[in-house]
């Protein structure tokens, strides 16, 4: 008798246990932000799980350089996670067109985002939105405040002041004037060309004109940034040709370089590493009083794998990602990733505040090559990396670079033919 009772007890308890664990749904997030792993594990996911019992979330990032290739293969093979971190524009649009990302237009929290914020994750006619915008990154220059104070340099606002400051740092010799290398190539285009460029092509005005075919890459506004990059060469460190992106970061945070052409995503890493005061300034304008433009690039969003086994739970999570609560949490956990949510977010980090304050005095635009123009072969973004590096090294003149890129673009893009 006791034996049967014990068996029954064991049976019910195991059944109950089974039922309890079956309620828990685990959602996996695919991402390229492996730097943010601890922030997701310690701050963001616990906050969600506390409010939504029964849904467990796992953040499973891949290395940034491999992300696109790895994600595409996983989606084709049907092994990708439930939630997909979305690259802006065509990379994600292609996934949506293939039916691998779900349409999220009906999600309640989509109302929290402006049309500009959503534009990077919409079909060309804006009829469907397939990722919840998370953050944008702003380009500018981060500088070593202690170095500037010691050398008596004021924060430059015009190009003339900018190069005068670099000359002064170089003449003093204590610091490498600017920390950037050309080994990894993308910094030259992303932190170089697309950082200083919007001041020349007047932000959105020039970018949209290029898409419509009204301007060409051989126009002065698109060649002049290369001309400025060519002048950077003299201010970079010895052997900058083989200097990698982490090398540049380390040179700056170790206090060996004075100016760092930056994206705002560097803020949290620099705060942790640098033992000196830092400041930031937007790309200097050509003449005092000119309107300034900044690259405020919609960079990261979250979408849903259309083949997810748990679409309802995934939507609960995405709805939360679109909320003001997530925006505050994310923007403060990762200073430098600025929320795209319409609700203003209070940020505590002074460097992040400096970056975001430029939104009020300058006009925002996104990187020129990202929307539509990198759809064909040769790929304009990759070509821009190459041209920016060549311009800095002096192996190709700015005019030749502009001509080569224009020919490449015109070879497949009808409005430019």
């Amino acid at each position, binding site marked *: 008798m006791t034996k049967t009772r014990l068996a029954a007890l064991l049976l019910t308890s195991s059944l109950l246990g089974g039922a309890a664990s079956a309620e828990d749904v685990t959602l996996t997030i695919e991402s390229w932000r492996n730097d943010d792993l601890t922030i997701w594990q310690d701050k963001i996911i616990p906050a969600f799980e506390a409010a939504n019992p029964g849904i467990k979330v796992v953040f499973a990032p891949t290395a940034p350089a491999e992300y696109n290739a790895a994600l595409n293969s996983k989606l084709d093979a049907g092994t990708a996670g439930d939630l997909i971190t979305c690259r802006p524009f*065509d990379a994600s649009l292609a996934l949506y067109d293939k039916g691998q990302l779900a349409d999220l237009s009906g999600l309640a929290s989509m109302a929290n985002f402006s049309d500009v914020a959503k534009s990077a994750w919409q079909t060309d006619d804006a009829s469907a939105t397939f990722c919840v915008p998370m953050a944008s990154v702003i380009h500018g220059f981060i500088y070593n405040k202690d170095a500037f104070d010691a050398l008596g340099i004021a924060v430059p606002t015009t190009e003339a002041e900018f190069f005068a400051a670099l000359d002064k740092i170089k003449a003093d010799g204590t610091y490498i004037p600017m920390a950037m290398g*050309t080994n990894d190539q993308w910094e030259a285009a992303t932190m170089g060309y697309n950082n200083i460029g919007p001041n020349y092509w007047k932000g959105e005005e020039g970018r949209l004109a290029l898409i419509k075919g009204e301007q060409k890459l051989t126009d002065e506004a698109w060649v002049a940034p290369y001309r400025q990059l060519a002048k950077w060469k003299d201010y970079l*460190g010895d052997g900058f040709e*083989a200097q990698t992106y982490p090398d540049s970061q380390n040179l700056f945070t170790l206090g060996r370089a004075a100016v760092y052409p930056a994206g705002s995503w560097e803020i949290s890493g620099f705060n942790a590493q640098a033992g000196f005061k830092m400041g930031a300034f937007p790309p200097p304008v050509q003449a005092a009083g000119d309107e300034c433009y900044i690259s405020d690039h919609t960079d990261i969003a979250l979408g849903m794998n259309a083949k997810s086994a748990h679409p309802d739970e995934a939507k609960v999570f995405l709805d939360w990602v679109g909320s003001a609560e997530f925006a505050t949490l994310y923007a403060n956990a990762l200073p430098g990733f600025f929320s795209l949510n319409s609700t203003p977010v209070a940020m505590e980090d002074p460097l992040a505040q400096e970056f975001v304050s430029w939104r009020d005095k300058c006009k925002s635009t996104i990187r020129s090559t990202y929307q539509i123009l990198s759809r064909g*072969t040769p790929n304009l973004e990759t070509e821009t990396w190459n041209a920016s*590096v060549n311009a800095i090294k002096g192996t190709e003149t700015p005019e030749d670079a502009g001509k080569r890129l224009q020919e490449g673009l015109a070879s497949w893009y009808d409005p430019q033919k």
Partner: protein
Amino acid sequence: MAGRPRSHIVVFLAPAVIVYTAVMIWPLFNTLRLALYVGGPEGRHFAGLENFRTLFGDPRWSASFWNALGNNVWFFIIHMIVQNPIGIALAAILSHPRLRFSAFYRSAIFIPTILSFVIVGFAWKLILSPIWGIAPSMLDALGLKALFAPWLGKEDYALTTLALISVWQFVGIPMMLIYAALLSIPEEVLEAGEIDGLTGWAAFWKIKLPLILPSIGIISILTFVGNFNAFDLIYAAQGALAGPNFSTDILGTFLYRTFFGFQLQLGDPHMGSAIATAMFAIILTGVCIYLWGIQTRMRRYQF
């Protein structure tokens, strides 16, 4: 004898044939087939040799292809003129009966071969780094700082530098194969030569080298196949864009970028397969030339 059923041969061959077909032959032919299609908004459709026409006819595609092939040939030449002679020399030294600690040298030289490409690429990038590397400080200590250049970042030197790194990594393989071949030469042959007055260098050139020629042939063809399939080291050291300015782009990195896509460029499996097919054809031609042109003419000696 002739009339007996031989079904057991099929049974014994089956496991290897099935596994090899599933993981090698079928994917290979499928890749060749994929090269004949093009993708489009309505799905893929058969296009015959269209991809090859683009690859060799379009000025941009063909420029990238010939650049990658040229770099690959240079990569191979460096291996042939540096790696293999050094491998043979090391084997000759190691097989010298009076060399002490030869087991230690043999292991030390062979160890890099078993290291991962990622570790080799990363370690050498650090060694040669103009900022933290020990190469500039070592040259400085010798008073030769002026000779240092950021080699991996210079278009003129980057490919040669990477080829030499690869030589450093793989020199153990020709060394081991030649070492084994040298050990298999019977003492009597060498003694007979000695009686005829052949010692030292003369013995090496006149007796040992002819006897190890078949091994050198095998090493050459292994180097050829390995180099034209190479990808890992370039990818680990320079990234998929094989900078600076595509000067280290070889067929493997060109294939990777095309097949899987890069940054904003979406992958094109069909164009990628066309490049893979071209690589396959190049390697097949090279191996055939070797097998029929060289291997069959080589003289073999039996003891």
